């Protein structure tokens, strides 16, 4: 039995199509990522699946229960960490945790095993008010609270947004551990580099799923010739490449440019061409795409 099934879900807010015919499934114990920028429809989907919002069309199940008819069952079996910090700021760490355990009819002791690895990191501050915690600590507490009733399915809406690089890595380590306990996890993120940490991902933009696959499969299925080019004159090179006939697309990637050509070339041919064109110290190499390259390739231009 799948942990989550989504079939043809559509949701409009007035004239705005927030979700357009979205379908996918998440298996038991699977870590599934929804990867897309702000406004892609990620949070709307979370609200529908956690039974807080009704879809206009389509159907779905969570932990085996249909999302409309058996919403009460679902609420007992899922943990949900919304995008915005939504714990009680004027309760302490331990008060928040025991509050959430109590409303789900359980105790912190009963399920301590599940949260132990995470909780020990914030336990030294357990008397501190939640409102006074750092971003990374708030996030750990929120995860503990979402887990304290031992959910079958965990929904994490942008858990790492606004969190620094160190805390982000720690957070993903925790998710990997939870997975081994059989909990299915649906996680959303605007950070494309986090995509490779998921078992499977859906790339989503403007309410539509562009592609679903494992990140490794997406990468090996990418067939276009892709080059990473470095030069001391990045900006001038960008403008030059943009108007060349062989260019399908060229975009800045940090200190390098990523170039997709419309025909296959050797990296040395590109280097040579650029040298002739006056970029004397450039280096070009053929690279595998990142998930961000793939997203940029298949997504729609913004303006």
């Amino acid at each position, binding site marked *: 039995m799948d942990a989550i099934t989504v079939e043809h879900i559509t949701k409009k807010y007035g004239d705005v199509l927030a979700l357009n015919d979205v379908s996918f499934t998440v298996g038991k114990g699977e870590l599934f990522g929804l990867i897309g920028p*702000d406004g892609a429809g990620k949070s709307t989907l979370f609200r529908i699946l956690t039974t807080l919002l009704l879809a206009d069309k389509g159907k779905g199940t969570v932990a085996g229960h249909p999302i409309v008819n058996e919403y009460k069952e679902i609420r007992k079996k899922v943990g949900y960490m919304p995008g915005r910090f939504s714990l009680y700021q004027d309760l302490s760490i331990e008060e928040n945790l025991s509050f959430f355990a109590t409303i789900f009819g359980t105790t912190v002791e009963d399920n301590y095993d599940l949260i132990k690895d995470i909780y020990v990191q914030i336990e030294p501050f357990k008397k501190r008010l939640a409102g006074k915690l750092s971003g990374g600590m708030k996030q750990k507490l929120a995860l503990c609270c979402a887990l304290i009733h031992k959910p079958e399915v965990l929904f994490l809406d942008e858990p790492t947004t606004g969190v620094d690089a*160190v805390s982000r*890595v720690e957070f993903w380590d925790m998710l990997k551990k939870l997975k081994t306990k059989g909990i299915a996890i649906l996680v959303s993120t605007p950070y494309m580099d986090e995509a490779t940490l998921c078992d499977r991902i859906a790339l989503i933009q403007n309410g539509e799923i562009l592609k679903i696959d494992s990140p490794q499969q997406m990468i090996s299925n990418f067939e276009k010739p892709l080059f990473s080019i470095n030069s001391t004159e990045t900006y001038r090179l*960008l403008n030059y490449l943009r108007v060349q006939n062989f260019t399908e697309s060229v975009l800045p990637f*940090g200190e390098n440019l990523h170039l997709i050509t419309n025909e296959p070339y050797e990296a040395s041919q590109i280097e040579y061409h650029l040298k002739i064109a006056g970029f004397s110290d450039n280096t070009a190499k053929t690279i595998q795409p990142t998930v961000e390259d793939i997203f*940029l390739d298949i997504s729609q231009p913004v*303006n």
Partner: protein
Amino acid sequence: MNTPFAIEVDKLTKRFGDFIAVNAITFKVKKGEIFGFLGANGAGKTTAIKMLIGLSKPTEGMGKIAGFNVDTEPEKIKKNIGYMSQKFSLYDDLTVVENIQFYGGIYGLSRKKIKEKTTEILEELELTEVSKSLVISLPLGWKQRLAFAISMVHDPEIVFLDEPTGGVDPRVRRQFWETIYQVAEKGRTVFVTTHYMDEAEYCDRVSIMVAGKIEALDTPHNLKQQFEATSMDEVFLKLAR
């Protein structure tokens, strides 16, 4: 004042009681450089920036921004820098033109100058058609570039970008960095703080602050070599963990 540097900081320090938030940081930023100022939450970044933009007096040390002393000439600094952050930027319920006029007025530009600047910004960003639309109705990417342009309405020598692009579309982010390149190409200095390490790689040089000190400062390329890392993310983790 004829120096090649837009920012010169020497042993700049800020204490709050016994706590040293910024511990003797020293660095220089060349004119026309894109400089990334990185650090984890709580590393002292914000306190350091506040000193650089004239909002907080240093406890010790020296800082010169656009030739002005952070300790004795904070008001001159404020007039000679641009500042943009994601949290504080445009007024959503004013139109594009009204926003430009408002900030032009704040910086004390003459009516004539405001008029010139308005035309210039609208043309450069291709916003003429929507000049009378409320800012709230613009796509995020346009808003960001407008906020950036407005932060330079008074032609400052340096512009400070405080976490300018958090969490947005990867395409919008790239457009924004292109705009930054354009500005730097014209000789203006750009000082960027961000905790997105992939963004750090767009900068000419970056510094990384850990617990009040600058622990690394170089080009992204050299830092990756120095720390035997494949990305700035890795460099940062090695330093901050």
